[in-house]
Each structure stands twice: as C-alpha cells, then as structure tokens.
C-alpha cells in the first residue's frame, strides 16, 4: 500500500464538498459521531438536510460564513492505497491556499459544473495546477444528472478544457462524468452513462501510476543536519542527515559536494534500522562519506557530471501571498531546500492573468494571490533545478524578514512555465 496525495479544486457550488463527502462516506471513512455532529450543526443552522460540507469546513468562521477558507486535510484508505486529500478553497481570494494544497499533490481533481460549463474559475485552477507541476489532473464534470446525463455536454466540456490546457505546461488530464450527489461514477460505475468507457473516480485514484513522477535520475541530497555524537560508542561517527530530493544513492557511489566542488565516495547509508543498500526519494537517511571534508547544512550532494546549477540570479514564477504587495527593490529571505539566503527583488517582468494567460508587462507590483514572473538576486548561490525537472530543488518560499510571514511561493523557471 502506498500513499496518493491529491488536491481538490473547485467551490462549494461545484459540489466539491459533496464529492469529498461521498468519497469519505462510501469508503467508510466518516464516523458515526462525525455524521451526528454534522447533522446537529446542519439542523441548528436551519438546513433541511445534512450539509456534508460541514465535514471539511472545520473552523468556526467557515461554518458561520458557509465557505472554505483554509486547506483541510482528510484521510481515507482503501485496500489499495492510503489517500491524503488537501481540500482547498476555490475562490480567487484564497488562491494562496490552493497553491499550498497543490504543491505536494500527486494528482488534482478539478470540479466543473456540467450546467455551467468551463468557467473563469476552472481555467484559473487549471493554470495554477499546471504551474505547480501537479502531474495528474482529473476533471470531474459534475451534476451530470442535471443535464440528463448528456454525452454531448460532457464532450463539449472535455473539448473546451483540452483546448485550453494545450497552452499549459503538460499534465496528464483525464475526464470523468459524475454526479457527486447521486454517486454516479464516484465509487461505482454509473448505469446512467453507458457511453462513458472509463472507470469511476475512485478506481482512477487507486490505480493512477505515480512512481515515475518522482525524479529518480538526478541525485540531489540537500544536507539537512550533521550527526556527530562526539561521545559514547559512536564518538567518531560523522554522518550527514537529509531527505533525498532526487535520484538514487548507493554505498560506493562517487558524489560531488557543493559548494566545494570536491568529489568523494559514499561510505555508507545509515538508519537506526540498519544500513541501506540503496536510498531514493523521499527517504530520510544519514550518509557517511569516505573523505573528511567540510560539509554543513545547506550543502548539496550530487553526481560529478550531473549537478544542479549554482545560481545567484534566479528567474522564477511567484505566487504572492503577502498582505502587502511585492515591489521591485524589496529584500526578502529565500528558503530553498535546506539553504536560506537573503535576496533582492530585481525585476517584476510581468503579471500573469490566470484566466486568459495574458502577460501584463510594466506592472509595478504583485498583489496577494497574483502570479508573476520575477527575477531575484540571492546573496549566495542556491543549488537549483528547473521546477519542471524537480519540484523539491526547483521550489522555494519567500519570507518577509520584518513580519516573519511566508509571503510567496516560487517556482524556478524551465519548461514548467508557459513559453514566452
């Protein structure tokens, strides 16, 4: 059994919460006392039926306003997989929360209301998911019951989405016609839509192949923490702990240390459960090196002929999350892998209209929830890959030093960005 992390994008109106509720309910992941509590809350609010959205909208403010504000994490499992759902709000003013929920997702579900067709919101969700490099997108065309389970409606929306998605960095897109309310094609195949040849949504979630989405080619081991007991039985032990961000690593492998440029060998890969013959992402391990070289947090181990770029001038797409707008000339902190550096905003090249993909040039600032192409100058080199090549060595966060808030998410450009 492995884990599939998926994000849901859409709003209450699209039936997102109903869909999540149904997945949880039909997989027996909602407990009786949770249902009772939701029923009580629904009745107290004067609803005439149980509102499954209350299962995911956990904060007082969300219940009072009837909207999702924050990312809610939900868990369920079938005999095939454990699922982690990042249930994200759909509205424009919560773009930053959707970005948060989708950053680590293997797959994202985009809800489209069959009665409305593709909306500005669905287009924005597709753009964001493309930008975040979510490898698999499942477009659920919902409320099929309200359009008479019409094949034409489904095919029109499919064609429209496909045409729009062609302009985006490629994810693998699948379409499923569903009715979350009645359960059509959610967990079981719908008898109402014999023309649909694919499997129900849950089957798709259980079987989508995600192992090859990780980068197992380029060794990237950001050094997180040096382990040096200095006393006891292991007084001379010196190991470098971290989580593999790419590639595979075996004892005996030749590795290049950055920033020194020194080449050495892996003497051993340790865990408390014993030494490993091989490590791969996302394993957390401790690496011993054959030579006594100066290694510290923020350094990187890679292969001699396959190293990330060591760059101070960064070109990236930024989703701005700060309360105050980002302006050219501002100084920020960049946290990238295990390295943190001060950085200057040199240039805001354009703002991306997330509905039309239009590039607005000459804009002076990037406001909260906006996406833009930005140039940064870092105070020391960062060991980067394009985000499209590796989400872990291509992604970074921006921190405001005065407020200590996380004010932005950055994706280092490569082919993950709409081509100029």
């Amino acid at each position: 059994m492995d884990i599939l992390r998926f994000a849901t994008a859409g709003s209450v109106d699209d039936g997102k919460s109903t869909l999540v509720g149904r997945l949880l309910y039909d997989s027996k992941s909602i407990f009786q006392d949770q249902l009772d509590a939701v029923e009580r809350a629904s009745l107290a609010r004067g609803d005439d039926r149980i509102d499954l959205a209350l299962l995911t909208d956990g904060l007082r403010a969300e219940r009072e306003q009837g909207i999702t504000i924050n990312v809610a994490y939900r868990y369920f499992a079938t005999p095939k997989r454990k699922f982690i759902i990042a249930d994200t709000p759909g509205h424009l003013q919560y773009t930053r929360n959707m970005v948060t929920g989708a950053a680590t997702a293997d797959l994202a579900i985009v809800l489209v209301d069959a009665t409305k067709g593709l909306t500005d919101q669905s287009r924005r969700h597709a753009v964001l998911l493309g930008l975040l490099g979510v490898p698999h997108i499942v477009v659920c065309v919902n409320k099929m019951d309200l359009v008479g389970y019409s094949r034409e409606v489904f095919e029109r929306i499919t064609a429209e989405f496909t045409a729009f998605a062609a302009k985006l960095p490629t994810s693998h897109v699948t379409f499923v016609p569903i009715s979350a309310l009645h359960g059509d094609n959610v967990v079981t195949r719908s008898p109402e839509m014999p023309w649909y040849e694919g499997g129900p949504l849950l089957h798709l979630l259980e079987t989508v192949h995600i192992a090859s989405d990780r980068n197992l080619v380029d060794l990237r081991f950001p050094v997180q923490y040096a382990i040096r007991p200095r006393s006891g039985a292991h007084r001379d032990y010196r190991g470098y702990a971290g989580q593999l961000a790419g590639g595979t690593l075996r004892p005996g492998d030749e590795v290049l240390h950055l920033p020194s440029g020194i080449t050495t060998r892996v003497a051993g890969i340790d865990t408390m459960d014993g030494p490993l013959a091989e490590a791969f992402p996302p394993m957390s391990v401790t690496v011993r090196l054959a030579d006594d070289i100066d290694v510290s947090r923020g350094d990187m181990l890679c292969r001699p002929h396959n190293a990330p770029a060591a760059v101070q001038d960064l070109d990236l797409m930024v989703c701005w999350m700060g309360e105050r707008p980002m302006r050219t000339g501002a100084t920020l902190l960049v946290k990238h892998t295990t390295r943190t550096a001060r950085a200057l905003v040199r240039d805001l090249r354009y703002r991306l209209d997330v509905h039309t993909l239009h590039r607005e040039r000459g804009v002076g600032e990037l406001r909260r929830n906006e996406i833009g192409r930005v140039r940064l100058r870092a105070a020391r080199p960062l060991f980067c890959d394009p985000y499209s090549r590796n989400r872990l060595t291509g992604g970074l966060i921006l921190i405001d030093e005065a407020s200590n808030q996380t004010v932005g998410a950055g994706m280092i450009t490569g082919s993950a960005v709409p081509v100029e």
Partner: protein
Amino acid sequence: MTEMATGYQLSHLEALESEAIHIVREVAAEFERPALLFSGGKDSIVMLRIAEKAFWPAPIPFPAVHVDTGHNFPEVLAYRDRRAAEIGVRLIVASVQASIDAGRVSEPGGRWPSRNRLQTTTLLDAIAEHRFDAVFGGARRDEDKARAKERIFSFRDEFGQWDPKNQRPELWNLFNTRIRPGEHIRVFPLSNWTELDVWRYIAREGLEVPSIYFAHRRRVFERDGMLLAENPYLTPGPNEPVYEATVRFRTVGDMTCTGAISSTAGDVESVIKEIAATRITERGATRADDRAGEAAMEDRKREGYF
C-alpha cells in the same frame, strides 16, 4: 504485517516515517531550544521513536516534557518514566498541581472537574521558564476538524495563541521557522497519520505501550454516556452504579475526562482489528473535553492548548 518497499516505492508507513523524521531534523537544525511533549500516550510514543531514528546514533538533542495534571493514570506515569530512562532522554515534568498551588489557575468544580483546560497555563509557563522556541506535539489532523486545518509548523504568538485565519502557507517540504523572542512554534510531525497508522507503526516497531490500552478488568461507572474509571477525583452519583467490566482505553488523558470502551482487544493486533472496524472516532468515543461544544478544540487551541 509486510510493509516492504517495492520498486522505488515506499509503503505508506515508510513514507509517513520519512516525512516525520525530516520534520524533526528540520526543527533541530533551525531552533535553539526545542522540546518534545511526551505524555506516555500512543502518539507521543511514536513521536519519541521518530526522534530516536532522526538522530541515531547520536542521542535525541532535546528534552521531553510532560504536563502532569496530577490526575493521570498511574500505569501511564510508570511507563513514561521507564521509557524516558530507557532512551536516555531528559524528562521535564511540568505540574498542574504546582500551577494551582501557586494560584496561577484554580481547580474547576461541578460534574466534570477536569484539569484538562488548566494544562494550557502550565504548558505555557513551562515554555516560558525553559525558553523553548519549538515544541513537538503528537496531534494528528484526523483527530478533530480544527486540527485538520492546522499547519505542521504552527505559529504561536507571545501569549501562546493560535490564529487559525493567519497561518503560514506550507509548501513542498519547506517550513518557515522564523520567530521573535517570546514566540514559539508548535510542530506536529504526525499530522498526516491516522489512528490506524499509529497502531500499525507501533506493531511494526514492536513498541511497548501502557497497559491500559489493552483490555483489562476495571471498576467503572457511566456518566453522560461515557464509561469512566473509578478514581479518587470523581464521586459517582446515586444513579451511577460502579461495576466491574472488561475495558480498554483508546486515548490516554486524565482519569476525570477519559472514557474507556468495552473491549476484549488484548494485544496490538487485536487493537488494530478493532479500530479498523469501528464507526466512532477516538475522541468522540472517549473524550469529555471535546464535548464542550462544536468548536471546543478550536477554542482551546486558540488559547494555547496542545
């Protein structure tokens, strides 16, 4: 149970463990004075094992802290001391009784005289006294709807308060650890674990847990639909007859607010079977402290609770 990696794919427990180890190391690397909350409950037992693994062969580089309400089950306290000694981790006990004696808080009365809420003051006092800047908690997002919305690195202001509407975005495996003096971060390495994951991990690791997690004979009485252990801090009412039953505890908290469940599950494998089949959440089944209202957990967390 077989949980082996196949074809560069981690099992779900291995992936959860790796994520948790990464989080624990990140705290050790970026904070000066971390501490790990250890109650002797199953979640903190797993968290302590994760910390052992994160730094092996070096010892855990921070102390364990227990907020002792004075109403804990004696079996759990004995386990707590034994486990801390085995691992060689320094154990700091912060006492709610001491907070009461010092006049910092006062003992509640009534039918539910629980010291649950008082723990917040004792915890925040301990954080201030020891100047902890990061505190690990074993809370999981599947426990409660407010916790489902909480970040893994959860910022607390100088009053220890959580502001659910003003949380730092968390992307990839990057965590913002910056704080000002007096503020701190609560860190939840088991955020993505479920109750079942915790028990499967206990089975996989062969971890010892306090005996009250397994079925045993105990004198109990019913109050508001909950099965409470006969104990020195609660007096059963005239309509609350005390009788002996075979029970176990699904969560470990105070004797005054932790309910038992009828169960014959006598070992880890039977507990896993029982939980896999249950239709009631662990907190719904057994915690009076969560019954104080629709947003009981959110309200306590805002004040600085675990």
